[in-house]
């Protein structure tokens, strides 16, 4: 336990790191906040003037705004659903001792090493492409018309790609959790007459609750900011069918050169993210203590 001297010394020693982090966080936030109240367009930087709430009003009345929030939600929840359910299933599968276990585990984890734009391009050009993608070949083999994934199901395609990328992460965390399950508990349940699905429901799932929480929290943070996969595949389209909030902000800033509008969007995104975070912590955070 710390004495008074060591406590004040500790405060002094950790001050630089905390101050640096604070600056790192506070300065960009303050600048974004400041820009969001300006008429600031890169095409006409000389005409910068005070805008008041106009940027917020403009962003809010943009029909793409609510569509993008909806898309963000669908994207995050869709990927979470696939990765958590799929992750549990794969973790249970590769937890059993099998021949070539090491190689199988490395293969399962490997998608995580592929950079997001590369992964998205591979999916776009080699898997989902309507004329020479693998899915098209499969469809043709069965005599069906190939699906033009990014035109017909743009958001679903992106969910699929992102889920593929995050599945290894979920699997890895859930697998370690599964391996820490006490074998005697499972045997006790077996003797108690619990069939496999009951053992899963009453033992495995509660045991993994904490790991599932970790997966949901960490993934949500990253999934709210999905951007590269959309940029290289659908570019947010068709229309705004696959535009999420991040991509909408990107469009404002880099396609319309509207720094003020983008900044306002950024602030709105920060607020929404915090609302989501509060709900998340309320809903699943109790599993963490």
């Amino acid at each position: 336990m710390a004495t008074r001297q060591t406590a004040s010394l500790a405060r002094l020693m950790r001050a630089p790191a905390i101050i640096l982090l604070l600056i790192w966080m506070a300065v960009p936030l303050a600048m974004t906040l400041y820009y969001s109240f300006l008429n600031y367009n890169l095409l006409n930087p000389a005409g910068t003037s005070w805008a008041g709430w106009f940027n917020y009003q403009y962003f809010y009345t943009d029909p793409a705004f609510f569509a993008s929030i909806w898309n963000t939600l669908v994207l995050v929840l869709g990927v979470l659903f696939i990765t958590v359910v799929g992750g549990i299933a794969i973790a249970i599968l590769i937890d059993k001792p099998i021949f070539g276990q090491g190689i199988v585990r490395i293969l399962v984890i490997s998608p995580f090493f592929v950079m997001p734009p590369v992964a998205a391009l591979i999916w776009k050009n080699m898997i989902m492409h309507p004329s020479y993608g693998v899915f098209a070949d499969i469809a043709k083999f069965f005599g069906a018309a190939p699906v033009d994934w990014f035109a017909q199901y743009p958001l679903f395609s992106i969910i699929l790609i992102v889920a593929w990328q995050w599945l290894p992460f979920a699997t890895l965390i859930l697998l370690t959790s599964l391996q820490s399950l006490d074998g005697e508990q499972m045997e006790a349940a077996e003797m108690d007459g619990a069939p496999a699905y009951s053992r899963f429901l009453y033992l495995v799932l509660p045991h993994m609750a904490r790991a599932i929480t970790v997966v949901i929290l960490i993934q949500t943070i990253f999934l709210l900011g999905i951007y590269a996969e959309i940029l290289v595949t659908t570019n947010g389209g068709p229309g705004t069918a696959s535009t999420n909030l991040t991509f909408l902000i990107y469009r404002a800033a880099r396609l319309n050169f509207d720094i003020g509008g983008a900044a306002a969007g950024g602030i709105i995104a920060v607020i929404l993210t915090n609302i989501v975070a509060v709900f998340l912590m309320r809903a699943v955070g109790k599993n963490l203590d």
Partner: protein
Amino acid sequence: MGRITLEGVAKRFGDVEVIPPLNLDIEDGEFVVFVGPSGCGKSTLLRLIAGLEDVSDGRILIDGKDATDESPAKRGLAMVFQSYALYPHMSVRKNIAFPMKMAGMDQAEQDRRIEAAAKALNLTNYLDRKPGQLSGGQRQRVAIGRAIVREPSAFLFDEPLSNLDAALRVGMRLEISELHNRLKTTMIYVTHDQVEAMTMADKIVVLHAGRIEQVGSPLELYLRPKNAFVAAFIGSPKMNLFTGAAAAEYGATTIGVRPEHIAISPTAGKWQGRVGVSEHLGSDSFFYVEDTGLAETITVRSDGEVNMHHGDTVWLTPTEDKIHKFDANGDRIQ
């Protein structure tokens, strides 16, 4: 009913035979203890009976019915594990209710059995706690409660007391014995502690390297050990074993004398030696006598008032009719 019969049961892990074929009869209502040094296969044998391991050979009969290929749940046995294996996220009540819930028993009957078990095991005030909030002894009782409510035909205990401290262990030992007296259900109890075996068992099965060395009541094993292994394993402190001239004198390869069957005297006796360590417990005194030329040390137990100390020269005399004789194979010579 809980009559368990093993017929030529064997277990192999790959090429390693951990349990060579063995036969064993466990009568209904018996308290049977499997005892042996660690790695002797006693836990494996218990797991074979439970159905948590598949037998490589032979048959397991429960109440005369072949249960060899039955699933653990169908055998009607309940097991208490060394780590207790409680379900950590369920309250004590739900832990105890779990096997009944799995069996689809109606709620009123479940509640009745839980209340009865909790009362018998002193758990009534803890029913709504989680296992993590209980002490080791209480967790052990919850594990026993979970076994009792199923009303199994036999209880299997896998070293249930080894995670408890010494005082608690003695208490739980008594509780389990009382439980057996009350329920009169077959119990199979695995331990490496021969004191637990001697105090609790109706019948002790001594195992060594997967083989059954001897089956018998505690006193039978103590008075007439079949071989040198059982002789050395049963009894505390251990029996003194001598080979060479001292044994040849009795026409045996090895002779064994228990510490309590050697008289110690400061003046005269059969073997001369020097007291090494002496332990005075009040009720008993233990002397570890060295330099006898027979064995490294000879352990002697005498009553508490014998007053001899480190370095004293002493004479030892074994009680002639309490000497155990063993032949070259280690088997008892009658």
